[in-house]
């Protein structure tokens, strides 16, 4: 799960064109709450089996808040990978660090991700993890079902609805259609304080600092420009059908009719 700047706040870039992750309030990417939810449901549906849900986040110091949130929701254990050298990493390096962390904590039977982060929003990390870990990828699930080591998901594709099947272990990503994420209960919040939370640096994972970070990113942002504020448009109030007439006039003036 990713720690991201709050989308409703004033998100900004630093002078080196990286995202300002300190000056803007951050939080657990909302789309990752659905991933946590699915992991918890997976555990709950398999009562009696020994299943441990680990919440994993790669991000700056403050990103530990995202891990805490997942622990409060019900995850058993937290892992936070933090290292100054990771700052400014592209998706390639991020997926490398995540894969190494999963290998260290794991082996995992199921790696659940959100469908996208709410900042970078590339939707590529789950596929990259599957590639790096050599696991099947089952992505963008709106309904998840499992029986034994078989997982079946339903998902919306461009022009169709599909059912995808694969065998554990696998990498799964879930959409915001997959089921409302639970809120942490008071009990959950109290219990989270006692749960194990480990912090790893790159050297703990055996990743060379020269493989990650801004200076070696395989793609580089060269320039960022804030969108100029839109010039205020014309707003009319509808009275006795005047709104429709004005609307049609406007569309005609722009040659849409």
């Amino acid at each position, binding site marked *: 799960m990713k720690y991201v700047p709050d989308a409703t706040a004033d998100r900004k870039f630093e002078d080196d064109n990286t995202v300002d992750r300190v000056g803007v309030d951050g939080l657990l990417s909302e789309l990752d709450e659905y991933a946590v939810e699915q992991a918890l449901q997976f555990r709950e549906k398999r009562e009696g089996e020994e299943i441990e849900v680990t919440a994993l986040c790669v991000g700056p110091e403050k990103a530990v808040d995202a891990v805490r949130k997942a622990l409060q929701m019900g995850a058993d254990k937290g892992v936070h990978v933090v290292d100054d050298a990771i700052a400014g990493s592209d998706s390639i390096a991020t997926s490398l660090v995540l894969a190494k962390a999963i290998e260290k904590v794991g082996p995992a039977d199921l790696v659940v991700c959100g469908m996208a982060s709410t900042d970078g929003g590339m939707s*590529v990390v789950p596929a990259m993890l599957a590639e790096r870990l050599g696991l099947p990828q089952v992505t963008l699930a709106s309904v998840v079902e499992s029986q034994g080591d078989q997982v079946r998901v339903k998902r919306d594709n461009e022009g*169709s609805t599909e059912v*995808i*099947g694969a065998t554990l272990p696998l990498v799964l990503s879930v959409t915001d259609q997959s089921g409302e994420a639970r809120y942490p209960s008071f009990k959950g919040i109290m219990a989270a304080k006692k749960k194990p939370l480990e912090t790893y640096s790159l050297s703990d994972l055996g990743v060379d600092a020269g493989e990650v970070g801004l200076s070696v990113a395989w793609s580089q942002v060269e320039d*960022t420009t804030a969108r100029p504020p839109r010039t205020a448009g*014309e707003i009319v109030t509808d009275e006795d059908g005047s*709104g429709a007439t004005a609307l*049609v006039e406007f569309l005609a003036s722009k040659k849409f009719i």
Partner: protein
Amino acid sequence: MSEVLVVIDHADGAVKKPTLELLTIARRLGEPSAVFFGSPDKADAVAEKVKAYGAEKVYVVDDAEIKGYLVAPKAEALQQLAEQAQPAAILLPSSFENKEVAARLAIKIGSGLITDAVDVQEGPVTTQSVFAGNYTVQAKVTQGTPIITVKPNAAAPEEAAGAGAVEAFSATVSDAAKTAQVVATQPRESTGRPELTEAAIVVSGGRGTGGDFAPVEGFADSLGAAVGASRAAVDSGWMPHAFQVGQTGKTVSPQLYVANGISGAIQHRAGMQTSKVIVAVNKDEEAPIFELVDFGVVGDLHSVLPAATEQIAARKG
């Protein structure tokens, strides 16, 4: 001049418009070679289409064996093709599937990846619109063969004669790539309206429709537009998820976007803010959507839209 691989987006051999846009963009970077994953008996028709937009070569990868699996086989095939063709860049239309193909390919061939470009110029230098359209950034791939996924409407398709030489490419797909299987597919019923992500005009409805989409659909049809919806409308079951516009739905960038009974939450804006002209009908003059509009009507959509639809019909005679 080096080849630029362009992955064709098509529905059973019918090439989609974003592919033609991509071929146009590819000509800025080198010699476009189109890559067709599909049935070889459709190859000639596909080649006919793409050569009119400058494709010098058309690689045909028979998908008989790979179409029942997710993403990984396509990434393997592209890796093998890239090794043979040594392209200057690899371009794919931005869809969730293509982004995942691109992701795996990037790792396989050791290349940087940029997704959701809204423009690509010589270099290649890409333009992306990020943070719900509040920032525009320029970026470059600095390692390997640039892999770039490009959003629809990033360029106007320009015709240019290419040789369109069809070349079969037989890819070897490993068993490891066939671990996630498509068990069933159910095609969605066509609405007869334009495809949401490709449409020049999109007319959307939100919670303010109260569940009655008829005024929205009628107005859309008078303009030949696609119909979209907010998540609130989708969550209420008024429209299928495929129609959702926004962060977790479709991103649209049409010439004209009309939001009806939609408040303008940041997640909705993320999917439509780059539209050229934005219009809203909302009965609350304080609705945040009005901050974005070129033209807004404060009023009830149930009276404004039907009246406007009638007037448009009258004008068209």
